[in-house]
């Protein structure tokens, strides 16, 4: 078999890889005062990669390199969105990084490598490439958490993340090896075919499935594999939290789609049950525990756990409607997340991390505009119209009800009622309390502009969600996966 070399399928990855190496080298020759050269270079790389993702988009799905990578609309769309998320994240965190000595080539290079791992995961159509992408992404993330090497809590977070991450990778790999043993292939499509043929040993497959689901749950941070999430979110510098909490979630979704939805799609009845448990536990536990938090980063961490539970609720419908609902949910969540951490960074300044809920007190009196932006973020996370978060919740609930899980939908909305309580508390602090901190809010104009755009996007997509909903449906329909 001749290897089907098709570089256009991996053009965005090539751009990011070359760009990362270039930034790494050029940064060595850039004076400390001119770091913005590296920054803009990184942004150019991201722009180029985003463009490459769009340019290589095609309606007809195909694979390249002997089935190692997929070249389909879903992959290209999500690659594009990952680029956008990373780019937005770097923009909104610029001032934050400058003040904390994180405005360095290493930050940008690690962000690009995370993105590269994310992209490889997104495009992978073989267990090997999936795993490669996952490890590349994870290693870059471990390093990013540990970037603040003088901070004890960051080191602790990095250690926890690394140990648990390594364990989860091991578990995942073990599960994959079982599937390989049962089907004799590592190719997603071939595994699916073998399963459909009915020749594979079901016991071994189920055994492998349990491990695979565990590995995925760890990446998503679903209960009971969530232990790392609050510590890492809290311990890492906020810019890293942002990069961990956004684009990798997109990758985790595709990862789940290809492993469970496609490769092990024949076992959907089995993994559906597991996902119900994960989803329900995540929604309830995440929302309840978030109430007790006084640190906004930890609160957002638990909120992310709950949100992943919601996403799983859409996914477990195990039909195209559910997959597209889950995809929309992830995209909406990423959009909201970038803005939420962006707001935390906006309020931070030299020697002051605005990571306590108290730090948001009286924000409306300090700056009505930013209070409004945070209001949008909070109501989007709570799923109140007219924000994009409402349609995210709406689509997954629709998918669950459609699949016959009305009780799960009711449990979900009740847990989101609990969730509304702590999101409302932030709004209360901003609007009803008097400020304790009267420092003016100071950030670079580009950070402010991007954050404003991001915040308004929550409102715009909340009023007109059709474009984004349509993209999810079309991308999945042309992915050839379902």
């Amino acid at each position: 078999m001749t290897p089907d070399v098709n570089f256009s399928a991996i053009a965005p990855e090539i751009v990011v890889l070359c760009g990362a190496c270039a930034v790494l080298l050029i940064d060595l020759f850039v004076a400390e005062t001119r770091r913005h050269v590296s920054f803009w270079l990184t942004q150019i790389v991201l722009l180029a990669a985003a463009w490459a993702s769009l340019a290589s988009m095609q309606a007809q799905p195909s694979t390249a390199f002997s089935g190692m990578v997929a070249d389909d609309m879903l992959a290209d769309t999500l690659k594009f969105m990952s680029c956008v998320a990373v780019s937005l994240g770097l923009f909104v965190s610029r001032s934050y990084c400058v003040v904390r000595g994180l405005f360095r080539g290493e930050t940008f290079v690690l962000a690009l490598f995370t993105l590269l791992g994310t992209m490889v995961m997104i495009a992978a159509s073989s267990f090997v490439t999936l795993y490669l992408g996952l490890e590349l992404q994870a290693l870059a993330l471990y390093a990013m958490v540990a970037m603040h090497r003088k901070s004890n809590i960051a080191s602790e977070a990095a250690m926890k993340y690394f140990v648990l991450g390594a364990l989860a990778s091991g578990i995942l790999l073990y599960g994959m090896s079982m599937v390989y043993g049962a089907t004799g292939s590592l190719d997603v499509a071939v595994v699916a075919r073998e399963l459909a043929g009915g020749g594979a040993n079901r016991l071994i497959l189920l055994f492998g499935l349990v491990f695979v689901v565990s590995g995925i749950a760890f990446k998503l941070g679903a209960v009971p594999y969530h232990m790392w999430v609050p510590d890492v979110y809290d311990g890492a510098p906020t810019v890293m939290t942002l990069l961990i909490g956004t684009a990798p979630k997109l990758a985790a979704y595709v990862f789940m789609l290809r492993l469970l939805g496609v490769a092990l799609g024949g076992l959907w009845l089995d993994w559906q049950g597991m996902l119900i448990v994960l989803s329900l536990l995540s929604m309830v536990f995440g929302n309840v525990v978030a109430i007790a938090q006084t640190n906004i980063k930890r609160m957002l961490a638990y909120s992310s756990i709950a949100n992943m539970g919601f996403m799983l609720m859409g996914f477990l419908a195990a039909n195209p409607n559910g997959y597209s609902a889950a995809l929309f949910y992830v995209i909406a969540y990423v959009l909201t997340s970038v803005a939420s951490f962006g707001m935390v960074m906006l309020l931070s300044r030299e020697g002051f991390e605005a990571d306590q809920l108290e730090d948001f007190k009286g924000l409306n009196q300090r700056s009505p505009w930013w209070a409004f932006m945070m209001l949008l973020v909070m109501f989007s996370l709570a799923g109140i119209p007219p924000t994009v978060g409402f349609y995210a919740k709406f689509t997954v609930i629709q998918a669950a009800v459609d699949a016959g899980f009305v009780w799960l939908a009711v449990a979900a909305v009740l847990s989101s009622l609990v969730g509304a309580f702590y999101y409302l508390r932030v709004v209360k602090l901003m609007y009803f309390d008097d400020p304790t901190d009267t420092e003016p809010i100071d950030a670079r104009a580009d950070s402010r502009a991007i954050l404003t755009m991001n915040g308004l996007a929550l409102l715009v997509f909340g009023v007109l969600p059709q474009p984004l909903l349509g993209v999810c449906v079309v991308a999945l329909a042309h992915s050839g996966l379902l």
Partner: protein
Amino acid sequence: MPYLSLAIWVPIVAGLAVLAVGRDRDAGLARWISLIGSVVGLLVTLPLWLHFDTSTAEMQFVEQAEWIPRFDIHYHLGVDGISMLLVLLNSLMTLIVVWSAWEVIQVRVAQYMAAFLIQSGLINGAFSALDGILFYSFFEAMLIPMYIIIGSWGGPNRVYAAVKFFLYTLLGSLLLLVGFIYLYNVSETFAILEWYRVPLSLDVQVLLFIAFFLSFSVKVPMWPVHTWLPDAHVEAPTGGSVILAAITLKIGGYGFVRFILPILPDAAHYLSGFVITLSLIAVVYIGFVALVQADMKKLIAYSSISHMGFVTLGFFLFSALGLEGGLVQMISHGFVSAAMFLCVGVMYDRMHTRLIADYGGVVNTMPKFAAFMMLFAMANAGLPATSGFVGEFLVILAAVKVNFWLGFTAATIMILGAAYTLWMYKRVIYGEVANDHVRALSDVNRREFWMLGSVALLVLWMGVWPRPFIDVMHTSVEGLLAHVAKSKL
């Protein structure tokens, strides 16, 4: 002309404009833009009444455009005789609220005005939406401004009241959303009017009834899910209380006639005894609770619950008389409760207390005000020739037709209402001048005079000549009854 779209978007755009220009420095500008916005907002709703065709039960002024094709959701607006008056009522109350806040609100004026204007647009949207998700979006989005109004400009316990208000209402509305989605999956559409024709088994209807009922009964509010209302009313600023009592409660009542009765007719019949019982408890028990209140706003809040119990009672008698009575009562209560809260606001602005015990002999210093309040108190007690009488009379008539004792129990509202309202009036207005603060009171100024006067005219008009109101409703009520009578099993 797309009058309904204008009714929704004019106030919202005006609200955004106020936010954009209004700083605390130039509060005057914010006030004037709000006033213009609310006047225009009211003017664009007037053609709804002038051009209303009373001979048809069909939706009028319909606007329809594709909004979210992925789920077949439309931007679909329209009003019938039931919702048209509520849109007008809401636009009018917004103007009055802007008026009432003119000199009273001094901090963050722009945000205060903008919150009311935006909320007004959202409420008009909820009353005129004919698509489930469009309705839901407006229905839930309107919580945000009210949450901020209560929490920012409210009394000492405002945060508790605001959060309680939000979470209570959200609980109901989330179940409503699941119900809507279920209906969508059955009927493949979010068009509310299509749902009227979807066959549903009784089990399903009962489950949906529970979901819908929780949502709307919290909003009405019915006993025993009413506890958020006294808190919210007491803590909210005057404008917030006015809108809460006059408009937001009506959305609950509107939900019953727009959703529960026609979509779930069999469940509504099946569970009517349950709803009627709750309504009567609200009328009688909450009436007694109102009697013992020491705080005027709390008393009016409980009186609202009691009066709204009358509305739900009228709806679940399934007769034209009862339905029309309930609807007229909603409109009338919109005027009367708003006026009562405005009166308390007028006194509160001068005395900074709402306790009945702190007043006495107000008539000596504020004779004009006492005359206005007398009228509104009488209307609240249901005196003939005021708007309060018409609705109550119709509902009692309908109740007696069903069962004499039902009508008899319901009629206690006349006695209880008179008791708690007039007793409060006596203690506050009559008697010797109670203290120096009362002695120092000044009578209503010109702004307050015209504000109370315009509501007083409406109360009298509706009491003396209710025909125009009932004519508008009649055909739509007949149409609704036809839906309710048709079994969906």
